[in-house]
């Protein structure tokens, strides 16, 4: 599997992703500058976390119009894999590759923490190396991660089992207290209907190295191989 990691001005998790895909999983990985358009050689595109274009206007709003995103849309249309983490998730909703939007956290604070998540189903390429209903702990670091969508969109996401990760408490219960940012339906990560595009606020790449004593994110990348 050949990975490409997009680099926007303001991306700051690009190297963390490369560390996992290349450093740990030994997969060929290259960075893609936001002005490049030739990504035909790549199997998986990762849009990393950070603050693309300073988060001006809205998070992800400007990044969506960068040259590389036209190619990413095409890549996704062909059924190839696209993973958006944190700011990458925001870019995916802004670009319409995923439904809904990510808005200011309920309590207005930037949250940097490690939180429990539940894997809702493991029939997806992204979760096939997890157990369904497995509880993971992954880092989150965002100020605008509150998932919002209208009722019809939420119903579609639920009906089609597109919600892959939800914020839960340590017992796996979906509660308001375990919802760090106020996301509707405790949503932490969703895929598109075809399943080849995943967006998530938690950072699997920051929990994929034994040296960090946190490896719950590694299986997500391994599922792609």
């Amino acid at each position, binding site marked *: 599997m050949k990975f490409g990691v997009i680099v926007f001005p303001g991306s700051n998790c690009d190297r963390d992703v490369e560390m996992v895909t290349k450093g740990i999983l030994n997969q060929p990985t290259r960075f893609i500058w936001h002005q490049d358009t030739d990504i035909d050689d790549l199997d998986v595109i990762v849009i990393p976390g950070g603050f693309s274009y300073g988060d001006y*206007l*809205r998070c992800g*709003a*400007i990044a969506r*119009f960068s040259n590389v995103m036209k190619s990413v849309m095409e890549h996704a249309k062909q059924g190839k894999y696209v993973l958006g983490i944190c700011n990458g998730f925001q870019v995916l*909703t*802004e670009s319409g590759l995923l*439904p*809904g*939007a990510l*808005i*200011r*956290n*309920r*309590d*207005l604070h930037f949250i940097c923490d490690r939180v429990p998540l539940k894997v809702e189903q493991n029939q997806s390429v992204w979760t096939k190396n997890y157990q369904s209903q497995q509880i993971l702990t992954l880092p989150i670091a965002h100020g605008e991660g509150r998932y*919002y*969508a*209208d009722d019809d969109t939420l119903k579609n996401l639920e009906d089609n089992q597109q919600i892959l990760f939800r914020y839960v408490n340590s017992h796996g219960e979906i509660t308001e207290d375990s919802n760090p940012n*106020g996301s509707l339906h405790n949503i932490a990560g969703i895929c598109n209907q075809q399943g080849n595009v995943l967006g998530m606020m938690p950072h699997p790449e920051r929990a994929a190295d034994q040296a960090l004593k946190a490896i719950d994110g590694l299986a997500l990348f391994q599922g792609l191989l």
Partner: protein
Amino acid sequence: MSQQYQCRIYVTLRPSVLDPAGTAVQSGLQQLGYSEVERVRVGKYIELTLRAEDEETAKQHLDQMCDQLLVNTVIENYSFELTPVA
């Protein structure tokens, strides 16, 4: 001959979207003693000038700009005013 317009664009959160910033500002106002304040919603204001053949064209272009970039219609509504610059 084209005309220059001064445009004022107001972006507001859709009523169905909770606005924690608005709630925080509201409680700040109430703590200052403005107990009459009942509801605060915080939005964005964008100013721009543009040239267009006529007002109708200017409005059309503004609508497109809002839909494509300035506004995320999943969570926001917008309105605008424009005045010709002499």
